[in-house]
């Protein structure tokens, strides 16, 4: 018990802070008189009080955090906050089961964007704001997680990215460094979000819609205030704005931060991922456009390009908006988009999947092994940019990939065994693990996850957390070794 006390202590502070998040939907609810304000009163009270009680109870256990505590803290934050996030949903919609509400909240905070709710257009605006505010807060958490916390914990070769983080990494204590890194990144994140809100509003959205969609885009979440997602607006201008901001959010925020601090675009030139990011996306979009034209799905080039570009960027960056039901496209196209979503997003972005940097490293490592077969005694280094990657990190990245693939296979099997068809199980698991949102088949963009049974919903919630916490973080806490002294 004394082991987890310091972690609980920090968690209690996070909870008290988190209760403030309900203020925004509360204010909007009161301002628009949409009748949902009681839900937030309740949520604020419960969250703050339980935070305060935990804080009092765990006061004794205060001490400096160690690596082990780091894992536990991250896992606890990502499982406990969704619990409290369900309060407004459950309170406003008494028919919603706890399982579904927790799924919705996990999907919110992991910025996945899968939903069990339909009839979104009829929900009070403040509830929709809350759903995507969870995305946005989750996005903030993700940035800090992937840029500051995971490299320190050494998850899945994340040490590689240490060099790129803005503050010097000499200090071995957890908290001060995290706080400073976080602040810088959040400022950038917040500024870009404000621009995104303004752009969407100028592009013709109402204030509420602009807010909802900006939160969703910046965190690469994917929930929307309309059942038809972005297809509701049917506006090329808005689609272009969303694409631009989704691409921005798909690039590492530490690169944005560097560019912001140096007031120059040079930082982007030094980011190895960016070339691949735009290269792969550009080629894929053109390829899919021609494929859809060739299959006769769209009749003229601009139309095909419009739909292919928006939906590809949206799925590949793990945002998950849709402007059309791409489930009815020839199978190859949506599956290829899901495939992209597993590696396109940048390493310090709000996107999911294995991240571009790991994909590049994997490709180089495989190539290296081939060269070694031709020249067995040659010493070949794996390089990213100008940096040589130590063997230990390549190792960790390969193990990460193995766990990634193994998780997808195992979880797909579990869903298939529980009665879903193979196609739906597989695409649902990929969409969950990559934090994309819509899958294909029965969980395609035109339908929701409500058709799944309780067991399947829990599997999906677990898959989202697994993907968001980069597998190791969650798995390590589940090993017996972790709890041994």
């Amino acid at each position: 018990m004394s082991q987890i006390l310091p972690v609980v202590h920090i968690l209690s502070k996070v909870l008290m802070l988190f209760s403030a998040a309900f203020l925004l939907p509360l204010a909007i609810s009161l301002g628009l008189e949409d009748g949902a304000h009681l839900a937030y009163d309740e949520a604020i009270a419960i969250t703050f009080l339980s935070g305060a009680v935990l804080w009092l109870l765990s006061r004794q256990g205060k001490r400096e955090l160690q690596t082990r505590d780091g894992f536990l803290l991250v896992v606890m934050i990502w499982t406990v906050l969704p619990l409290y996030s369900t309060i407004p949903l459950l309170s406003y919609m008494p028919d919603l089961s706890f399982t579904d509400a927790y799924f919705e909240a996990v999907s919110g905070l992991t910025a996945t964007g899968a939903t069990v709710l339909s009839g979104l257009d009829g929900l009070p605006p403040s509830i929709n704001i809350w759903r995507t505010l969870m995305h946005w807060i989750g996005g903030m958490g993700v940035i800090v997680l992937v840029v500051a916390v995971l490299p320190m914990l050494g998850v899945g070769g994340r040490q590689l990215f240490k060099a790129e983080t803005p503050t010097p990494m000499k200090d071995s204590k957890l908290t001060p460094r995290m706080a400073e890194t976080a602040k810088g990144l959040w400022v950038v994140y917040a500024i870009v979000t404000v621009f995104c809100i303004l752009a969407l509003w100028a592009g013709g959205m109402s204030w509420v819609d602009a807010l909802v969609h900006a939160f969703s885009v910046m965190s690469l979440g994917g929930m929307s205030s309309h059942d038809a997602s972005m297809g509701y607006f049917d506006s090329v201008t808005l689609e272009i704005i969303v694409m631009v901001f989704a691409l921005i959010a798909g690039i590492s925020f530490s690169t944005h931060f560097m560019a912001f601090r140096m007031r120059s675009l040079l930082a982007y030139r030094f980011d190895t991922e960016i070339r691949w990011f735009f290269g792969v996306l550009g080629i894929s979009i053109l390829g899919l456009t021609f494929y859809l034209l060739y299959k006769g799905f769209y009749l003229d080039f601009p139309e095909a390009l419009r739909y292919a570009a928006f939906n590809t960027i949206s799925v590949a960056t793990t945002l998950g908006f849709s402007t059309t039901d791409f489930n009815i496209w020839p199978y190859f196209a949506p599956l290829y988009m899901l495939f992209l979503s597993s590696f396109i997003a940048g390493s310090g972005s709000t996107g999911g999947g294995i991240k571009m940097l790991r994909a590049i490293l994997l490709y180089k490592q495989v190539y290296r092994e081939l060269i070694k077969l031709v020249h067995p005694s040659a010493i070949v280094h794996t390089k990213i940019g100008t940096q040589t990657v130590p063997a230990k990190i390549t190792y960790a990245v390969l193990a990460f990939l193995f766990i990634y693939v193994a998780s997808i296979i195992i979880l797909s099997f579990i869903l298939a065994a529980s009665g879903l068809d193979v196609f739906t199980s597989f695409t649902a698991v990929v969409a969950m693990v990559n934090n994309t949102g819509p899958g294909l088949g029965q969980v395609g963009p035109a339908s929701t996850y409500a058709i799944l049974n309780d067991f399947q919903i829990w599997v999906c919630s677990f898959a989202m957390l697994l993907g968001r916490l980069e597998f190791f973080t969650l798995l390590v806490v589940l090993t017996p070794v972790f709890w041994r002294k």
Partner: protein
Amino acid sequence: MALKLAGMSWFDAICHAFATMSLGGFSTHDASVGYFDSPLIEGVLIVFMLLAALNFVTHFLAYRQRSLMPYRHDPEVVGVLGLVIASCLGISLYVWQAGVYPEFLTALRHVSFNLVSIATDCGFASTDFNSWPIFAPMWMLLLSCVTASSGSTGGGLKMIRTLLMLRQGVRELEHQLHPAALLPVKIGGHAVPNQIVFAIQAFVMMYIATIVTMTLVLLASGLDFVSAFSAVIACINNAGPGLNEVGPGTNYAGLNDFQTWVLAFTMLLGRLELITVFVLFTRAFWRG
């Protein structure tokens, strides 16, 4: 001999013995082994398929030493037999529960035969397992990726690589907790050099990347998802029948020329363990 005793004609016995020992899977009958409908023949085949799925070096050692000890020392044997038996029981229960077969024993009979046949990459079928609940045949295909031993006539990743990858995954998890600890990856009491673990990881990644790419290629050429995916898996593992349009009840003739070429290439890739083929595509190979 065993097959003849169990009731096959000499001709059938020779054909099936060849197909079994090489874990090939061609039969003289469209209905494959289902034609004989004899539990005895199926039992004989199961035993020989499992034998063929073990490392022939181990067989050789056992033969020379006239003892069963080498099998005890081969870590793969435990893995292969354990996994196959556990899966047989599990899938039988599952298929029985799902109501495909009214009796557990019938379920066990059909499941063991088809599961062993697919998992060892042999590819005989005694029933159209495509009509089972989709989880069962998918699981069998998954087994076909990992079950056969190195040095056997089966295909896929091979059991030894699977074991190594598992150990490596566990080691990385432990590394998360004790970053400075030196933890060797051990197989059957021997520490495996990092160099080899590395090469195997790269191999597994190539294997997965190939499956994904080939599946996407087949999809683009118009096949449905389950057919494309299962066909690629079946071909790269040299197992034989896939599912759906290429399931055990049908054959690969339904594919167009392009798809057939893709799959022929995939079979070669799998049999030559990928790297042998891929290395031909690097510039370094052709230089000087």
